[in-house]
């Protein structure tokens, strides 16, 4: 995908569709869409810095137990552990730095991998029993 704001919006829509297909309820779907939106913002704004020569790859995979989202950019990369905690009192009034926190808040697992160049984010949402039932009912 191109490093544009349109790609962020498109990815959010795709995430909602994928989450619906996985049988997630509305609240959980909304959380997954937000996590994907934040991952895309991270890749396009902070990673590729809107450089249209650099691409963002987004993929969704569902294996029946988990919805796995992978986003990778071609930016200069970052060290996730060095991102300040947005919940620390001294950071509460900062105007940025909440994206990774929101990804972690809405997904069950978030992993970062350094690429050369860039960063790959893998986010996992586990499908609970009732969601698996919904999935089976719709197939």
């Amino acid at each position: 995908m191109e490093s544009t704001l349109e790609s962020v919006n498109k990815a959010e829509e795709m995430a909602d569709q994928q989450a619906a297909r996985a049988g997630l309820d509305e609240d959980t779907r909304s959380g997954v869409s937000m996590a994907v939106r934040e991952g895309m913002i991270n890749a396009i704004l902070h990673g590729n810095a809107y450089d249209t020569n650099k691409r963002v790859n987004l993929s969704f995979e569902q294996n029946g137990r988990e919805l796995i989202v992978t986003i990778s950019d071609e930016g200069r990369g970052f060290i996730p552990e060095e991102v300040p905690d947005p919940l620390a009192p001294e950071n509460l009034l900062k105007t940025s730095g909440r994206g990774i926190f929101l990804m972690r808040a809405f997904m069950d697992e978030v992993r970062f991998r350094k690429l050369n160049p860039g960063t790959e984010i893998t986010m996992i949402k586990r499908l609970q029993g009732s969601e698996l039932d919904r999935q089976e009912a719709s197939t």
Partner: protein
Amino acid sequence: MSMKASTRQVDGVTIVDLSGRITLGEGSVVLRDTIKDLLGKGQKKILLNLGDVSYIDSSGIGELVSAFTSVRNQGGELKLLHLTKKVHDLLQITKLYTVFDVKDDEAGAISAFAH
């Protein structure tokens, strides 16, 4: 859906009725420009009505924080009104719910401003 903002005055308080999404790009810019415009006109008692705001992302949260601190730095007050459940939950998990003065009744919110 893009964001729209309209303002009205009630008892010396500027109520900004926002609708749509406060997200990276247009939504955040609309909010930023609205606050800048109001502060430029000396209107420092601002009530942001978020009742029709369906969605806020991290950029939108940043813009709300920026609005809050800009108004406060100029000796004014900014309060939030009518949060939807989604926005309420987002402010809760980011621990901003207690930072902002959040109201659910317009008349009560207006009288809570310093007069």
